[in-house]
Structure formats: C-alpha cells, structure tokens
C-alpha cells in the first residue's frame, strides 16, 4: 500500500508505527512537500493479516528470528519445545526484575523474546537489560505482547 498527497502529487513517506496493545495498528505517513501527515489505522483483523504474512509496515526494525511467526502467534505451544542453549547472548546481563518479568512470558516464546531484548541492548551498548530497557524496546520495536 502507498499513500499519495493528491494536492502535491507526491508519494507520502512512512513516519512512525504504533501498536497500542489492543490488536490494532497506527502508522503515520507524511507528505515530503507540504508536510501533511495522515494516519492509517487498521482494525485487529487487518493488523493480524499483515502480521500473518510475516511482514512489517514501516519495514523491519530487528532481524527476523527463526520461526518468528510460529513462536509469536501459535497459542498453546509446548513450554519446552525449544532448546535455546546454543544461542550466543554476549556480555549483556539481566537485572533481577527484568528476569522476573521475563518469566511471565510463555516458555514457548520466552527464548525468542529474551534474544530480541538482548540484541536490542547489545546494539545500543547497554550492559544490562532492566525493565526500563524492556519498556523502551517494546515501544521502539513495536513488540506488542512481549
């Protein structure tokens, strides 16, 4: 999908994506000529359809994880289906409260979520993942439900 500023006859450019947490999505597009901003709002069904395709409006902000769609969307997954032992975590550590919050994530997807937060911290030179870092990553990366 693309957005056209009809007055300027210019293709609008993606500005920002927000996942408010209710299954919907908001994406803002700006006209590079007049600066007008429009928001595209998708309902839960439309949002889910896009997610099911494994694509992200606004482009990917983090590399795809293996079985990302399956792990993120399958309900009733086996708690111990995955062995994360072979994944490199580098020198990033986790604070006690961040670890506690992580335990609330279902085991089926926990390893992937941990990896995403760890990579987020590593890329920004953050030595320790805290709940504040998790909140920042969720907002920045659009990790709804993680």
């Amino acid at each position, binding site marked *: 999908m693309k957005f056209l500023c009809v007055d300027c006859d210019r293709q609008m450019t993606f500005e920002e994506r927000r996942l408010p947490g209710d299954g919907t999505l908001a994406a803002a597009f700006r006209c590079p000529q007049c600066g007008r901003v429009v928001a595209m709002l998708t309902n839960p069904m439309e949002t889910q359809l896009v997610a099911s395709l494994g694509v992200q409006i606004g482009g990917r902000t983090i590399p795809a994880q293996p079985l990302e769609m399956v792990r993120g969307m399958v*309900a009733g997954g086996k708690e111990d289906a995955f062995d994360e032992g072979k994944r490199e975590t580098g020198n990033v550590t986790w604070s006690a409260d961040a670890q506690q919050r992580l335990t609330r994530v279902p085991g089926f997807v926990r390893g992937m979520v941990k990896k995403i937060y760890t990579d987020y911290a590593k890329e920004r030179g953050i030595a320790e993942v805290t709940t504040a870092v998790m909140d920042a990553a969720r907002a920045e990366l659009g990790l709804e439900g993680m």
Partner: protein
Amino acid sequence: MHIRTYHELTEPDRSGLAAQIMAQRRRVAQRLAGVERLIAVMSGKGGVGKSYVTAHAARALARVGRRVGVLDADLNGPTAARLLGARDGRLAVREDAIEPVVGADGVRVVSMDQLLADGRPLAFRGPEAESFVWRGAAEAAALREFVADVAWGALDVLFVDLPPGLARFQELAELLPVPPAVLTVTIPTPESGDAVRRALRAALERGATPLGIIENMTGGGFAGTAADDLAAEFGLPVLARIPWHPARDTWDRLGERL
C-alpha cells in the same frame, strides 16, 4: 482531479512490503540450496496413509545411507514426528535457524506436533472475529518458516508430508523456486481414485513432476483398481503396493525406486 495509480508511484517506500516478501522467498531458496530433491507426498484424500508412507520411505532411504529430512506440512493433524520417533525431541535454536530433531534411522524431522502442547489443536493468537481472513495466511507463513527457518543442511531428499486437499500443495508450490516432485498415495477404492485424480491434476497444472503412484492398504477390505487406473490415465508407474502389514523389504524396494 488527477490521482496517480499505485504503479505510477515509484519513489522509495520504507515499508517495502513486496521487498519483504521477496526476501522471504530468497531465504527459502537459500535454505533449500543444499537439498538435492524435494518430494511432496500428496493424495487429495484423507486417511490413505500419506504420513505412514512418507515416514517409511524416508527411513528406507536413510537406511541405505541417504541424508533424509521430513517436513510435516500437515499443520492441523501432524503425525510424522510420532511415526519417526521424533515427537519429544526439543528443537535447538541457533542464531538464524532451528535444528530439526533427528528421528529413527537418522531422519531429520520438523513437525507442528513437536511444538504444540499435548492434545492442543493448532490455534493462533489473534482476533477471533473474521479469523477465516487471516488464518490461511498464518498457516502458509508457518509452512514457509518450516522450510526457510530450519537448518535442513545437506540432504539427498526432503519429503514434505502434505495434508489432504490441495491448498497446502499450492502454498508449497508458491514458495519454492521450482515446482516440487510429487509422490501420490492412494488406496484401491474408486472414491480415493477420484480425489487423488483431482489433486494430481492440480499438481501437474502447477508444473509439478509426478514420480508415480503408491497404492496403500492393498489386499484387505478395500476393493478397486485406483492405482492402476491413475497410472494408466497419467502415464505413471505404480511404485509400490503396500499391504496392510508390510515387511521391511516392501519399504526397501520402494526406496530403491525413488
């Protein structure tokens, strides 16, 4: 008012949804680069023993030293992992891939059965309302991830065990750089023959290469000549006739013909 059309807008698009889809396709092709042959096991008819045949054909090839994988594409009724003794293994996560579980005779297996808690049906998190709109896309994406995100490694043969019907075959054919070879399983009855005929025809229309017909459950209560009829109609060999209680050499002979 003049409004330019979609294809007339050629400026860079940060979302690049089409480019993201193309990247997914490239990942599939890269992952399958080490797979010598991909064989889709199909029928069109449920309950004819596709998974049973797949598992034993895979084991027969593995026993003679071939490197073999089985991708269980029956997401809603997965049985290949149990048949291959790979149901309870954990899938090891690497940086960019999942390692398949090694089952009987060294066959590498990935199945939804390894992922779902016991007795749970395949369900996706998401809005229930109008789930028919997105569920098909989610299942197709799961199939894509089973191909593209699994470290299949160098394989002589990767079997894809398809569910009944045509939809999953079409999703698979869409994903692959070239249409797959297909192995068609039927039971002797004319009803099975009718369903298999439609599936086989659909596969051929998508450019699939037919390897032949396997007639399962012969010599028992099922009467008919479905395998011979299909073989004559499509000019294909009957690769094996599998009795109700096959001996190991039945599978070994099938393996020799694949």
